[in-house]
């Protein structure tokens, strides 16, 4: 028996034995056991470095247990449990196995003590998760999955290249704080940073997220939303705490997705944009790098996984019952899906950081850290982003799905397993928000922060209710942009439209030139051959057999000419 037993192995074992159980409720029930065992293993593992392995001459550490990896391991296990419960009704072996392998890879990655182990799990998350997109089994999903896979694998390739260069510089592959090397301009560390940045959806590297998450299956999106990006946040918190550029990257990340989220019609894509925005808060926390800020990042990742899953679950339940998740097609569903509506509102209140909901006690750590360290502009941007996220995730999603104009759709309430998963997640969102101490105790550093002060509660309520007021006023005056059947182009336009266009243009130019040259050459050759044929061919001048008379005549001419010449000289 391996001691301590690595939690990721539980998921691998699960993925191996799950197909042996007949498809049905039993298999769904068994799949729920693995995350529970994983959480228990993580909870009981002693801190420290475990399972050292030597691999091609490199010293690897499969398990590094400390408070930072533990909190991410626990929330990943919890998220896996809730998503699998939500997916109880799914009878697709591919999705069941890939969900387990994906969660297992993510958990393996957060406990990886070195860059090589990290790389293996990093690619594991990429490969396992793409099946959740392909499981939709449509042509569009196939192409989207391909784009997703190319970007995710590229991130891994860059990571391993960075690790190789890092090994050349430092002589080891330990996954530890690399901020000093990064600041010194070490190319290996920069590559590693870049690899993390792709998975973390940094601005301009972000579009794989909004492209792929709405393309996955209903349950697949819920699972996808929890792991990949938060693994990247963890990796940044581990490798690059206090790297100042992250503050600015994070601030931009909180900012631009909210504009897109306001005009986007596909509500699962709206949620993907707001996910990107929430990652920005965490990245800012890593960039500030103080104990308060890193606590904020870990707490916010924890809270975020819960409420973001909850929001994806509620929109997914609507998609499951109506066949669409588009704002332009929905409305008035509160009458027949009231419980889903309530859970959606709880998720919305949590992401918006209403007092007594989870976002309130986690996001404020990061905002306070920014103000403490005198990043006032950043603080103002984060405050704006907080109001903005309330605007699109907090109001827009519940409003356009469950209220607004009556779409005439009268779907049944979500099935029991979805309601149970949403109910449990809602409970956790409120529990964490109302009683944050247990979460604070899990954080990497000692917490000396009181979220519930008169000032904090009143100022937060002011911010949120006046944002709601803005929404109401804009809605009533008709200024608010209506939901339209449309898409909005983002940076992916560069590689989906512009890139192919440029390549098409180049091939056209080169192709035309090639055609011109070959036509010219073949025509010239043809003409030459024809000419030669005319003179040298069977009918040609040169090939004709001349009559004897002509010969006699030419000899006579020749003789005459020579006589004339000899007479003259």
């Amino acid at each position, binding site marked *: 028996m391996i001691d301590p037993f690595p939690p990721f192995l539980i998921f691998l074992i699960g993925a191996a034995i799950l197909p042996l159980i007949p498809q049905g409720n039993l298999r769904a029930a068994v799949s729920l056991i693995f995350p529970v065992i994983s959480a228990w293993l993580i909870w009981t593992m002693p801190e420290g470095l475990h399972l050292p392995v030597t691999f091609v001459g490199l010293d690897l550490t499969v398990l590094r247990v400390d408070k930072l990896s533990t909190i991410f391991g626990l929330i990943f296990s919890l998220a896996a449990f809730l998503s699998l419960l939500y997916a109880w009704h799914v009878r697709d072996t591919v999705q069941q196995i890939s969900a387990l392998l994906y969660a297992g890879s993510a958990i393996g990655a957060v406990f990886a003590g070195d860059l090589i182990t990290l790389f293996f799990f990093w690619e594991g998350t990429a490969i396992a998760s793409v099946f959740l997109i392909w499981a939709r089994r449509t042509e569009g999903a196939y192409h989207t999955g391909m784009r997703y896979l190319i970007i995710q694998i590229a991130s891994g390739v860059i990571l391993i290249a960075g690790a190789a260069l890092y090994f050349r510089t430092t002589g080891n592959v330990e996954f530890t704080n690399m901020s000093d090397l990064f600041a010194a301009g070490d190319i290996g560390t920069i590559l590693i940073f870049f690899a993390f940045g792709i998975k973390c959806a940094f601005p301009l590297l972000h579009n794989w997220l909004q492209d792929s998450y709405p393309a996955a299956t209903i349950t697949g999106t819920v699972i996808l939303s929890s792991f990949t990006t938060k693994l990247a946040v963890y990796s940044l918190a581990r490798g690059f705490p206090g790297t100042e550029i992250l503050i600015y990257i994070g601030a931009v990340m909180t900012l631009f997705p909210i504009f897109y989220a306001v005009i986007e019609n596909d509500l699962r894509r709206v949620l993907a944009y707001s996910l990107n925005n929430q990652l920005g808060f965490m990245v800012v926390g890593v960039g500030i790098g103080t104990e308060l800020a890193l606590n904020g990042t870990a707490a916010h990742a924890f809270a975020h996984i819960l409420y973001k899953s909850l929001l994806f679950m509620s929109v997914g339940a609507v998609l499951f019952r109506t066949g669409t998740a588009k704002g332009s097609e929905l409305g008035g569903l509160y009458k027949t899906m009231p419980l889903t509506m309530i859970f959606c509102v709880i998720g919305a209140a949590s992401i918006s950081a209403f007092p007594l909901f989870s976002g309130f006690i986690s996001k404020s750590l990061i905002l306070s850290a920014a103000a403490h360290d005198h990043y006032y502009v950043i603080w103002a941007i984060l405050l704006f982003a907080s109001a903005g996220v309330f605007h699109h995730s907090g109001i827009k999603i519940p409003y356009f799905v469950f209220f607004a104009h009556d779409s005439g759709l009268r779907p049944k309430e979500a*099935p029991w397993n979805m309601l149970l998963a949403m109910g449990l997640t809602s409970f956790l969102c409120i529990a964490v928000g109302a009683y944050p101490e247990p979460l604070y105790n899990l954080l990497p550093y000692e917490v000396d922060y009181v979220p519930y002060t008169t000032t904090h509660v009143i100022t937060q309520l002011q911010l949120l209710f006046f944002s709601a007021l803005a929404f109401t006023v804009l809605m009533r005056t008709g200024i608010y942009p209506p939901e339209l059947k449309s898409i909005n182009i983002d940076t992916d336009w560069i590689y989906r439209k512009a890139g192919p266009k440029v390549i098409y243009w180049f091939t056209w130019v080169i192709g035309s030139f090639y055609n011109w040259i070959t036509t010219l050459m073949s025509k010239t050759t043809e003409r030459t051959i024809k000419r030669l044929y005319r003179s040298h061919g069977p009918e040609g001048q040169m090939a004709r057999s001349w009559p004897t008379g002509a010969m006699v005549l030419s000899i006579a001419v020749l003789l005459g000419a020579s006589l004339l010449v000899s007479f003259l000289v």
Partner: protein
Amino acid sequence: MAKTPKDDPANYPALGRWLMFLDKKKNVDRIVYGLYALCTALFLADFFYYKKVYMDLEKFPGFYALYGFFMCAALVVCAKLMRRFLMRPEDYYAPYDVEAEEYPEEDLDRESVND
């Protein structure tokens, strides 16, 4: 599913039926007036407690309220303008995108309360 002619509220879940007061414009107006009253109260609350904040900017009465209101209004107006440049038809990327596709029916469980 969908727009069945015999749409009967009796088939709705009890909670949904109870919430149907939201269908009346009068009640929606009441909620909106409630929001106005709440906002006024929150704005005025700033004058009645000791605001423990770090920055001078925050001490300005109603700073959070005004910031939230105007920034959100600006957000929506900017986003609306962005639509002019960014909006494309749904099948813009088709067939390489799911946006113009229907969600596969076999993975759905469309059921209407009126069935």
